[in-house]
């Protein structure tokens, strides 16, 4: 079977990735389940959070990534201000030896929606600090453009609130964002099932980032395989150029007797 993705890598932060599915590690019932899901997903880049060391904990999510040769992407989850986010990013860089960061600066714990002002501030500081900044943002095309102008390596708009599984609530905004962007657009948050991920790619997104949809599915490994296929399917459909929507029918068989 032809590998249709072969000649279509994702260019992000100066690197090439064969997979356009970026995974998160939150919500998995165990490191074993997580590991199998990550393998099934085919991901090459995966997020982790930074927290205080727990002397009691056995096994590390880092080992799970290392064994599979998956690049680690620390996030700044749980930060409410630019200052917290910048500090967390620096600690992550020291701990993990990477200058890549998924930048999250949220406004409250009910919606987990990003705070546009603090986010932009943090992005500017981290870009100045030499980081490769991948900001989790809302679906506002204007804020996305500002983040791009601030030097972010990509913009990562939400489709819906984190963990909601509501899919892409406003495809129109994502399309506007894609048209205006000159950095990769990565759909982050909201994906609930495979068709959501395929739609994101059909809208022109360069990649999809998801965690909950896989880690909290009834069968994470199977859903990871589903997402892998869905992202590939959506990307192929985007490249193939879909048929126009038409109000009326168009016969797919020649007129009778013709």
């Amino acid at each position: 079977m032809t590998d249709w993705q072969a000649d279509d890598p994702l260019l992000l932060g100066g690197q090439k990735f064969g997979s356009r599915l970026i995974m998160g590690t939150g919500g998995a019932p165990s490191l074993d389940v997580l590991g199998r899901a990550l393998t099934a997903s085919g991901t090459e880049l995966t997020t982790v959070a930074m927290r205080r060391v727990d002397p009691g904990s056995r096994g590390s999510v880092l080992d799970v990534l290392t064994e599979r040769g998956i690049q680690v992407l620390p996030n700044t989850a749980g930060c409410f201000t630019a200052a917290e986010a910048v500090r967390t990013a620096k600690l992550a860089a020291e701990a993990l030896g990477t200058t890549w960061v998924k930048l999250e600066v949220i406004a409250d714990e009910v919606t987990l929606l990003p705070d546009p002002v603090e986010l932009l501030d943090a992005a500017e500081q981290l870009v100045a600090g030499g980081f490769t900044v991948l900001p989790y943002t809302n679906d506002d095309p204007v804020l996305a453009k500002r983040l791009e102008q601030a030097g972010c390596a990509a913009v990562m708009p939400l489709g819906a609130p984190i963990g909601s599984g509501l899919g892409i609530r406003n495809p129109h905004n994502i399309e506007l964002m894609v048209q205006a962007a000159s950095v990769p657009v990565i759909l982050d948050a909201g994906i609930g099932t495979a068709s959501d991920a395929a739609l994101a790619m059909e809208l022109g997104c360069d990649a999809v980032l998801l965690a909950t949809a896989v880690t909290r599915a009834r069968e994470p490994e199977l859903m990871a395989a589903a997402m892998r296929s869905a992202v590939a399917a959506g990307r192929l459909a985007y490249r193939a150029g879909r048929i126009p929507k038409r109000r009326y029918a168009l016969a797919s068989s020649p007129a009778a007797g013709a």
Partner: protein
Amino acid sequence: MVIVINGAARHVADDLSLDRAVSLVSDAATGIAAAVNGELVRRASWQSTRLAAGDEVEVLTAVQGG
């Protein structure tokens, strides 16, 4: 003296070095980072970094998330 490591107060020898302090909560050779009073201290400087009474030490690592 008393310092705070990851939120817990501890009695430690005066003039304790940061690498010793970190070793109280983790023996990891890699994958961790430390901050003293909110400021990152590079691993290379842990040994030479002396702590003072009341210092707040944070030792972080990567966990599942995002």
